[in-house]
């Protein structure tokens, strides 16, 4: 794919990141410093409106910081030329709102993320089906998103985020509407991704149980990181 020299230090570095909306009226991020190592699993928690989604969107190159610098997998987010390709190749993004396309089947919603990828056409459908199996909804492949429960939709969104084997997974409340059994299944999948493929995971959650599975919990408040704590040492 791209230069392996860049790949080896897949990580996220945010330095004094500010994001200001509405001409200074809203300071969503007020100087965030955060480093995530390659293969690390970080959970971000904090009250509603503290800037968690905003930070994730900046990591995904969906927006640019007002000031400060962000490097993701070696790419400088302030000077990124091909943000589409970056998102497709580097980032798997699970939105807070699942954002599925209502016209397409569940399988189609996963396959559509592979457009422009290096995976041959013939294999795309099979791989999408495998990802659906990973999140335990293989049997729903032909349904429309409107025919799914909230938790099932969330799992489609997770499968879609993994469609291009991204080295970095950014997930915004991916377990928000899942029951505890499904939460465990999803967390198990995340652990497997990390162990088998060294996927770097940044996960936003309000759930302390979910956060407890991560290597590190980052606490945010009013657009700033207020505490960081390692959860466990295996």
């Amino acid at each position, binding site marked *: 794919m791209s230069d392996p020299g860049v790949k080896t230090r897949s990580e996220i570095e945010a330095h004094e990141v500010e994001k200001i909306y509405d001409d200074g009226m809203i300071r969503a991020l007020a100087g965030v410093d955060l480093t995530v190592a390659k293969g690390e699993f970080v959970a971000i928690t904090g009250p509603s409106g503290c800037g968690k989604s905003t930070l994730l969107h900046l990591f995904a190159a969906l927006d640019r910081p007002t000031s400060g610098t962000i490097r993701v997998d070696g790419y400088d987010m302030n000077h990124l030329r091909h943000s589409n390709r970056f998102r497709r190749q580097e980032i798997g993004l699970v939105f807070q709102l699942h954002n599925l396309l209502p016209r397409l089947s569940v*399988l189609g919603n996963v396959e559509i993320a592979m*457009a422009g990828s290096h995976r041959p056409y013939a294999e795309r459908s099979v791989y999408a089906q495998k990802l659906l199996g990973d999140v335990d909804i293989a049997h729903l492949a032909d349904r429309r998103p409107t025919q799914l429960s909230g938790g099932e939709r969330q799992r489609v969104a997770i499968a879609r985020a993994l469609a291009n084997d991204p080295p970095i997974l950014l997930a915004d409340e991916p377990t928000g509407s899942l029951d505890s059994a499904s939460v465990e299944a999803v967390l198990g999948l995340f652990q497997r991704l990390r162990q088998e493929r060294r996927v770097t995971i940044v996960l936003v959650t309000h759930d302390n149980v979910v956060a407890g599975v991560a290597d590190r919990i980052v606490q945010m408040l009013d657009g700033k990181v207020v505490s960081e704590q390692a959860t466990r040492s295996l």
Partner: protein
Amino acid sequence: MSLVRLVLANLWAKKSRSIGIAFAIGIAVMTVVTLTVVSSGLENAAAAVLTIGKSDFTVAQNGVSDILFSSIDDGQLHNVGSTKGVANAVGVLLETEKINAANPLFLEIGIDPGDLSHFGVTVVAGKPYGATANHQVMLGWRAAQNLGLHVGARFEGNGTWNTVTGIFSTGIAYGDLGAMFPLPALQARNRVAGSVTLIFVKVVPGFSIPKVEKSLTSSHPELTTIRTASEFGRADRNLVFLQAAATGSTVLAILIGAVIVGNTMLLSLFERTREFGLLRAIGWTRTRVVFLVVGEGIVLAVAGSATGVGLSFAATSVLEHLPQLTGVLHANYTQGAFWRGLYTGLGMAVIGALYPALRAANLTPLKALSHE
């Protein structure tokens, strides 16, 4: 999930709108195809007049609006006949007359009986009329058949009753649907004594036809020569006008259609803002989004063009059977007409879809995703 399948899924999801756009394209394509086949049919019919006389080329008055309005006098006919390289020059008067409802534009040819063989006419029954006879006529065999007349019957034409002296064949359907009169009789009736419409020229073997044409037109700039059906347009301004109308309507159809298609797509784009935002957010390039939207336009164009050609078939067959237009309108379905229909449809759709496509591709993903 190929792009094609996605395009089809998107169109299917909005069936009634898709059908509406395709139908609008169909109407425009129908107009264009119909004008094209009708003007090409007229060109053929008019050119058929010229092919009746088995000549090397035809001489007409330069710049008349309708070839039947061409007028050449005795003196000019004589000059053409004595031009070097001309073997014979047959002056023919062409008129049309409404003889009944089924024949609103019955062809009447004024020709000297001595010129019949030069002109390529064979008398298949009876005999030719007298050179200066007043109430005599020969009918083309198709006309005789249609009218149910035989040698010796009476035929009302040229404003009077005439005896049918013979039946002729020209080998050209258009000619065989008409009648032939002694030249002076037809001239007198139409008050054009001493003038003919066209001169059919045969060149002496061994002489170059283009050279003879050239020497003729350079010494007679008021005359023009016609050799092929396509050259025919030069002498007939009505046809030039009709052809221009077909071209103009194509351009107009493309422009107006593009605006309609563009507007409708722009509206649907507004509803689909979140979809485009999502596609960009999961890594779709702008180009791919443009292809998606333009692709939808192309599918609509192809469906619309097919509809338009079908509608055009229906429209021309209705027009051809209108009593006022019987015998006047001949649709000539050429491959060119189909291509013109297709590129009209495609032009409308691609030009119309381009702006919405670029708008869609340039949405800011996050803003688009938060669109309600």
